[in-house]
């Protein structure tokens, strides 16, 4: 009997632990960053940056036509050029429709990514891609609006930036539609972009 009681107590304890763990992970302080909150609507964002041609840009620049936005930095040798090359390929596949999409690369490394550096860098990729940069506090405000993250990491060679590598898609009214994640199969990207472009004023997402 005593053994049974111990077993029952252990089972109850395990159940309680599992429930507590579940709460902690889902609703509690341990709520994972996976399944992050979606980016806020562009109309509620607040930041002021400069594009690679020296124009003032901000959230309002993303309204009026659908937008594809991603973060990176020009000193990134692997993920960023790959993402830019992928996006260039998608824009090529979309032909003239690429002109109806704001395609924006926002630097998370304003210290090194000056307007001139951005201009030179985006010049190697599809002509529709715009490069935005600006003071660090404005970069932080932009990143926060997209619920993205970035972090400066020292290296033997200086520093690198950890950053959200997902591509964000918004409809013409600035409502978040979906993301294209870095490890997603690339052939799904163009249909997703077209879906964002087709998401109209009826709120279809």
């Amino acid at each position, binding site marked *: 009997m005593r053994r049974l009681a111990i077993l029952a107590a252990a089972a109850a304890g395990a159940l309680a632990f599992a429930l507590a763990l579940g709460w902690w992970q889902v609703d509690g302080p341990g709520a*994972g*960053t*996976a399944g*992050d909150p979606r980016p806020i609507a562009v109309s509620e964002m607040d930041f002021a940056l400069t594009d690679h041609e020296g124009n003032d840009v901000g959230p309002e620049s993303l309204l009026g036509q659908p937008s594809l936005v991603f973060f990176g930095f*020009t*000193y*990134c*040798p*692997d*993920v960023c*050029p*790959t993402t*830019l*090359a*992928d996006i*260039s*390929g998608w824009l090529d596949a979309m032909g003239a429709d690429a002109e109806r999409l704001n395609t924006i690369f926002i630097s998370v490394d304003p210290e090194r990514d000056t307007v001139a550096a951005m201009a*030179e*860098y985006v010049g*190697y*990729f599809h002509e529709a891609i715009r490069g935005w940069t600006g003071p660090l506090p404005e970069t932080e405000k932009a990143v926060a609006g997209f619920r993205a*993250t970035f972090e400066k*990491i020292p290296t*033997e*060679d200086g520093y*690198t930036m*950890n*950053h*959200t*590598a*997902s591509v964000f898609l918004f409809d013409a009214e600035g409502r978040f539609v979906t*993301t294209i*994640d*870095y*490890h997603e199969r690339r052939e799904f990207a163009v249909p997703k972009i077209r879906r964002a472009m087709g998401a109209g004023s009826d709120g279809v997402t």
Partner: protein
Amino acid sequence: MKSKYLTIAAAILTAMPGFVFAGAEDIVVGDPWSRASIGTSRPGVAYMTIRNTGDTEMTLTGLRTEVAAMPQVHRTATNGSGVSSMSPAGDIEIAPAGTVSLEPGGLHAMLMKLSRPLIEGESYSLILIFGDGSEVAVTVPVLGMGARGPEG
């Protein structure tokens, strides 16, 4: 006279691209490619597949190249929240009959402190250094900045 022979011997050795020691003869490198760089201030990158056709494990411990003072194998990882990070990969073990791929978004040869720009259409030599002291020289063609794979 002795130094002359040494010089000749050294000249012959350096003139043999892909000169290999011991275990390195079992290493077969495929599809090497590199992206053009903008100047020398940003790190360059090289990709390839490294196949071990032998029956002993090989460990890639380092890299050497004339085009960069600090070449190192790095690994890009993207976590569940979509955040990408990059860090030195350390030693890379290649099992017998195994293949390790250096490809976009994963392992890559990161060429830090470039000594000259990587110009599209050119190529350079990258030496793979293995744990047994053997080396393999790889000729890496430089593709465009927007290249997505060995085909461009």
